[in-house]
């Protein structure tokens, strides 16, 4: 595997769901307000990939700190298979799914890429696709950092609480393989809870996009949300100021709680 940290430690996950708008605001805010960190967990299933199905799954827990928000995901795959075009590999997490491998080069060959083995890292940042690398007589056929079949940006903004599920299935008769190693690397940021709650818009704007700065614009924008009973203004349970736990209604406790968070600002 060309890139990974091999810590097997399991960090307890204490993530909390937050409202969608706030979450996106937090993501954007964290990007500028906090430095990115990475956590990688590798597993070695050494599991057989049966011919023409069924699906082989590996669940991977990557524990992140509280308030960690995922900004990027990379997946390393080490698969031995004499016909990698048979494979469909997906990554699922918290209700979202991305496809890493989908019958490589099927557009070029009737039975997709006949190359041997994948030993590569899948990253949205890559410009090279597995199809670009598919060629006879080169093993492993897919190496380096390559782009997934569909973007893994669907995981951005989520926390790391749920397991990461890698599903590997051989979809064409003939040929079997082994999945030897899977590494999931999460790039994330952790932000102070107060900051993440209070930072709801960009300075001077009412865009709803956090900018890492808690200022009057944020207060003004929240006030407009609260005044209009927007769902995103629902940040606490009635009567209890625990920011980030909505109760389905927008009332004075929400405003009071926001004011409390806002007054703390960003560290």
């Amino acid at each position, binding site marked *: *595997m060309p890139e990974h940290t091999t810590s097997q430690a399991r960090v307890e996950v204490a993530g909390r769901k937050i409202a969608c708008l706030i979450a996106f605001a937090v993501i954007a805010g964290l990007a500028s307000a906090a430095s990115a960190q990475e956590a990688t967990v590798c597993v070695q299933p050494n599991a057989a990939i049966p011919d023409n199905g069924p699906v082989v799954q590996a669940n991977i827990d990557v524990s992140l700190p509280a308030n960690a928000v995922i900004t990027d995901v990379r997946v390393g795959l*080490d698969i*031995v298979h*004499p016909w990698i075009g048979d494979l469909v590999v997906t990554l699922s997490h918290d209700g979202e799914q991305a496809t890493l491998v989908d019958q490589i080069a099927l557009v070029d060959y*009737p039975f997709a890429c006949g190359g041997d083995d994948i030993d590569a890292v899948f990253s949205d940042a890559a410009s090279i696709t597995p199809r670009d690398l598919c*060629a006879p007589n080169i093993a492993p056929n897919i190496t380096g950092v390559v782009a997934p079949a569909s973007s893994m940006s669907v995981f951005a903004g989520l926390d790391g609480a749920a397991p990461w599920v890698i599903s590997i299935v051989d979809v064409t*008769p*003939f040929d079997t393989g082994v999945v*030897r190693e899977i590494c999931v690397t999460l790039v994330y940021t952790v932000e102070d809870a107060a900051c993440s709650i209070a930072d709801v818009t960009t300075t001077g704007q009412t865009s709803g996009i956090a900018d890492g700065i808690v200022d009057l614009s944020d207060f003004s924008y929240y006030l407009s949300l609260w005044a209009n009973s927007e769902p995103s203004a629902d940040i606490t349970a009635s009567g209890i100021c625990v920011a980030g736990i909505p109760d389905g209604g927008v009332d004075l406790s929400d405003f009071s709680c926001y004011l409390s968070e806002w007054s703390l600002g960003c560290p």
Partner: protein
Amino acid sequence: MTAWTRCTRRARSGMLGPAFVLLAVVMPWHSADGQVRYKQIAAPADRVLAGVHDLPAPERTGVASPSAMIPVQFEVEGDRLVWRSELPIDDGSDVRMMLLAPGAEQWRLSVTPSNGVRQDLHTKARAPGLLVESGAALLGDVSHPATAYRLLDRTAGAWRFEVEADPLTARTEGAAGYLLIKTGHPARVYSHLTTHRLLTGSEVGLISGLLDASGEPMPGAVREGVAVVRTPAGEELRFRMKAEDGAVSFRFVPEYVGEHTVRVTVRGVHADGSPFVRSSQHVFPVLANELELGARASIVPDRPGTRRVVAPFDRADRGGRVIASAELWGTDDAGASTPVCWLSGMADVDREAGEVSLYLDERWLSVAGARAPFELREVRVQCCAAAVPLAVAESMPIDLAAPMPALRSGVTVTPDMLTGRPRAELSVSLIDDAAARARAFAGHNLMLVHGYCSSGVWPVQDFSGGLEVFLDQNQNRSHDEFALLMAAFGDNSKSFGVVAHSQGGAAALHLWTYYFSGLDWAEGARLIQSVGTPYQGTPLAGNLAVLGDLFGAGCGVNFDLSTDGSALWLAGIPTASRSRVHYWTTSFEDGFGFDFCNLVSDFFLSDPDDGVIERSRGQLPGANNMGHLEGWCHSQGMRDPAHYFDSSRNADMNANAAR
């Protein structure tokens, strides 16, 4: 990936019978976008320096014929038809004769050797020293009854021949048939085209000389030559050949597009003064003169790591698929010209832009250590159906649209540099093979392929595992058409190796060279195994073309199987492709009496031969010669068993086949 885990590589699975049957039911036939992708071929600089890809000189691709094919033209004499001729026989110790014509078995042949004793060969009373062999004359896909006569221990000199026929059994206009004569003397006529630029309005001709037993020219031996050209329009042009450097020649400017046949008859004299006659038969296509290359080429940016090499046309009156190729030369550190690589591939003429493109992997520049200025040399655009050059240019300076990348050290040639990678825009539609679709089969298979004008020849029981039996019965295909049919047929296999007979071997090599297919993914010792493949053509192609006037077109004329056509085709096949071919040749059992595989082809071919190809022309330089076996002929119905029935070799091929 650790060392120990590397060792866990799985072998491919699923070549067993039960899987074969199951998948015939469940596996849907599919093709990605119905296209076959072109390879972007390249060969290293040393291949350029070795001249491997140079167009063959026409004088090296001619036909050597040890026999004479004399037209029989009847005249009416009372209630019968008679043809008489006197011919010089240079060695009477062993003279073979045969009448070749539809219905010739009813004709009566008489011979009066120089001793004056007439012998009626057709009678059942056998003269001393007369051997008669009756059998089938295989002419392409058609078998005709034929009888060969062999007179032994006669004297050389002027022999008189007489053929008599009943009026209803032969025509009196033009040649009703041919008298084939082959004496015991090994002298041969060698005839070759004057050019391979076989285009309308472009002069073409033939030069004929005489060779002795060792294949050396016979100085001063040629006395006269006559050439008869039959054009696609049915015209018969007769030329008295002119003396030229110890040979005779003729030239003409073809007007018509299509196949031209030529029959050359040369009379000569041995050093001892004894006269003799030989003839050779040829076929060549003439294509429309529609392309003319421009003066300068260019290299423009393409995908990352790749450049597009553009050769412009001054005149492009046609589009369509062609084979384009060129040597790329650059400049080394000392400022001297140095070859970078040879580029080739199927290409589509962009008629609107007036250009054709090749693709350069930039790594070749680092491998060769070459910088600007660059130029193309030996640029050629060839027809893909018959590799006739449509346009050529000796050199084209290159304009760079953008600077070339910096050279890197330590770059070595990788397999993908030799073939490129599939590109959607470089492709041709897959032939819709309904039969293949219906089979709906996948897996790693062995494809058993027949040859020109043939059908399923391989005994399937000699092979095991997943088998694909290619069938394109009794057809005449260019190597390219044949290869694309194989691609369509093989589209049912994830990967396949090939065991091929005759032209099937050349078609498989063509497929492997020019197109991405299941061949590229096959694993195993031997990718393409062939038996009796005329990699360097067969003189029979020309003979059959001439005889086609009498016997009908049969499967038709195939220029790729001629000596000229195969040489033009072979010049485009890189050493790297050839190295994946394992081939065998065979010939008749050399014994007493009639030693041949085929009654007719024995007159045209130089021994040893298998009835269709000569051993020498079955060789594929750069490939793996697996040996030559006597006692096996090319096809069923020949003197010895057909070589595709050699179960011992079949078992060997089966065991070692890539799949």
